[in-house]
Structure formats: C-alpha cells, structure tokens
C-alpha cells in the first residue's frame, strides 16, 4: 500500500497533467457540437458585458462609414418603394396578410464581437432571449447571409458565423434552381464551397447563389454570393467556389430572422418520417 502511495506521489505531476488534459478535451468536444451551447450561455453573460463596452468604442470610431452605408441602404429601399407605386401592376400584386400569415420576423441587432481568423468563428450579438431571439434563427446583413444563432442568454446571443467548419447552409443556383449544401472550408474569409450540384446543371462564373429555403432556418432567396470558379469532382458533381457577398471583416448591423412556422414544419416532417 505504502509503495503504491509512493508511486502515485512520484508520478503526481504526470497524473494531474493527464487528468486536466482529459478535462479540457472533453470540454472541447462537448462544445463543438451545434446544439450543446450551455457553457457558452453562462459565460456569455460576463464576456458580453465587457464586449459591449469595447464594441461601443469601436462603433464610435467607424460612425462616418456606417452612416454612409445606411444612407446607401436607405436610398435603395426608397427606390424600391417609388418603383412599386409607379408600376402598373400595382392592382395585381398579391396581398400579404401581415397578421395571420406572417412567416418571417425581422429583429435588428448589433454585433459586439466577431472574428474571421479561426476555423470555428463565432459572432456575439447585443440582443438575447428578452428581445425574442431563439437558437436556430437566421442572421443576415444587408440581405446577405451571415450565420445562425447558436445560443442565447438574457441579453446576448452567440451566432455561428458562416465562416465556421460546422455550419452548412442549404443553397441553390438562382437561375436554374439546382440545390446543394454550402460550407466554408477554412481558407480566407471571402470564399466558401458549394457541393452536390450535378454535372448536367448549366453554370457559369458570376452566377448568383441564394438560400434554398429547405432548412426552415433561412427564408428562400437570401443572397449568399457569386460563383467564382468551379471544377468537376468525383465524376458526377461540381465543386463550386463561391465568393461570399457578405464582408465579414466589417459587419456591424445585422437582422435576425425568426421563422414563425418553423416548429410546424419540423413537426410535419417528423410525422412523415415516422410513417415510413
């Protein structure tokens, strides 16, 4: 017994090292998963507070640029309104019943922390469950894809950025509707890869890639980017390089999109799978 204790005492350093290392790696693996965000939620409350302070300073410094962008955005929106009023088709427009038939709900939010240089990038927003944010909501900026909400605390939310090896977005080519899954491959913050497009699809450099709306997170038709390059891969599919339209380096204001019918869709799909 004593010799065992002596032995343990002699290798206590190694033992402690192995224990701590196992602890950290379990932590890492458990949190890598898309849905296990509990740890992040607790700590977000503390980290979020500090980030708000530094972010408000940063935002102050870029006010001029931000104003310019808002003016541009305003202009664009005003133009759209103008053109709908003068169009002859005004009487034939489909009427959207905003009370009973609203499907997507937009909430504006500000980014208080962001990164582009890791393999698993996350964004922190200044709104949380109190402002109606929930996990699995979509995040867009100026009409193009940014990411998906991962976890929320009372006043903050963590977003899995599109620049994260774990995120896949169901997307399609705008002009012919072929769909595939888009993911980031970790090289540079401006490009991502679209897979699963069959070889008989007619594609050209410069074609627009939008969300497909199949995943119940993103509405259909949100801009992702443009085809930059494509190669054949594995004989029957294209591997398409997509230039992202979002500039992740200067994101500031974003919109969070909630799908009001998400649970209904998921339940229906579950039922259908159960019947098989």
């Amino acid at each position, binding site marked *: 017994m004593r010799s065992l204790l002596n032995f343990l005492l002699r290798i*206590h*350093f190694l033992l*402690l*090292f192995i224990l*701590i*290392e196992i*602890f*950290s*790696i*379990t*932590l*890492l*693996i*458990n*949190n*890598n998963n898309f849905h296990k965000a509990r*740890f*992040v939620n607790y*700590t977000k409350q*503390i*980290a979020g507070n*500090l980030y708000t302070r*530094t972010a408000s300073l940063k935002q102050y410094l870029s006010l001029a640029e931000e104003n310019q962008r808002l003016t541009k955005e305003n202009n664009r929106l005003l133009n759209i309104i103008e053109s709908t009023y003068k169009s002859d088709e005004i009487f034939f427009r489909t009427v959207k019943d905003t009370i009973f038939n609203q499907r997507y709900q937009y909430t504006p939010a500000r980014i208080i922390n962001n*990164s*582009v*240089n*890791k*393999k*698993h990038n*996350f964004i*922190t927003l200044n709104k949380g469950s109190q402002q109606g944010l929930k996990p699995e909501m979509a995040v867009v900026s100026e009409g193009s894809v940014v990411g998906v909400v991962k976890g929320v605390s009372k006043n903050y939310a*963590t977003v899995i950025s599109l620049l994260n090896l774990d995120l896949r977005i169901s997307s399609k080519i705008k002009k012919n509707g072929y769909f595939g899954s888009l993911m980031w491959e*970790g*090289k*540079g*913050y401006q490009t991502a890869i679209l897979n699963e497009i069959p070889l008989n699809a007619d594609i050209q450099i410069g074609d627009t890639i939008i969300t497909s709306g199949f995943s119940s997170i993103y509405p259909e038709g949100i801009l992702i980017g443009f085809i930059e390059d494509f190669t054949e891969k594995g004989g029957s599919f294209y591997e398409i390089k997509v230039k992202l339209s979002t500039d992740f380096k200067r994101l500031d204001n974003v919109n969070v999109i909630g799908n009001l019918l998400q649970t209904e869709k998921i339940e229906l799909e579950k039922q259908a799978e159960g019947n098989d």
Partner: protein
Amino acid sequence: MIKLLPRYIMSFILLVFLQVFILNNIQFSGYINPYIYVLFILVLPFETPKWLLLVIALILGLTVDLFSNTPGMHSSATVFMAFLRPYVLKIISPRDGYESETLPQLKHYGSAWFIRYSAILIFTHHLFLFYIEVFRFSEFFATFLRVILSSVFTIILVLISQYFYRKDIRR
C-alpha cells in the same frame, strides 16, 4: 516569493486583455495569429510547484477560452505547454544551474538562453493549439505553416515584452 503575487495578478489581467481585445482581432494574411498570453507561463518563478504550474495554466487557458468561444482549446494547449516547462528548463539549464534569486527572464540569463527557452515552449503550444483547432490532419501543411508563422510572431512579441519589465525586479 509572496511579494511577487500582486505583480503576477496584474500581468495576468493585462495579458488576457491584450490577447482578447487586441491580438484576437488581428490577422495578417490569414496565417498569423499571435498568442502572447503564454508569456505568463514562461516567466513564472523557477521554484513554482509543478502542480501549481498546471493549475495556473488551466485557469489562464480557460479565461482566454471564455472570451474566444472555444471552451477547452486554449486550456488544453496551455496545460500541455506548462507540463513541458520543467523538462525544457532542465534540458537547457546553464552550466552552473539556476540562481535562487532570479526569474526565467531575458535580463537574468541573456538573450540566447531566453530565445531558446521561449521558442521551444511557444512552438509546442502553437503546434498543439492549431492542430486541435483544425481537429484533423487533412490540411497538414497549411496548418503547419500557420504554426510556424504565428510562433515566430509570438516569439517576437515576447522578446519585445522583455524590455518592458521594470529594472528593479530583484527582490
């Protein structure tokens, strides 16, 4: 020994702030992310008990993790580095050992010794960190390039930091 405590607490806070709010936002050409916070483990006194070394490394790693949304990543790499520190110190010890009143710093043991010491530990830390971040070996060389470039950058920052220490550190 105990007189050094407030100093170390201050430098802990300072290094974490520097790392989280400034260096984490810096990215040069997609490859270089310096991680200066390991300096804290480098300059701990020679007499630090080994178990304490690991515990400090865990706390430091978890603090950085908390701010960068990567629970376990920095802590595992930092603990790995802290584990190697006693052995590295033994291997590269000067001929007549370490004096009792000194710290592992540039001005006590010269730049050649310090560069060797910090380069070995920083390189192992970055190697562990970047591979565990990618979590696969398929892009072996791209990751390796990131490890080397970032290590060089961190070593340069650590060397610069050595000139900021106050002169009257001897107790």
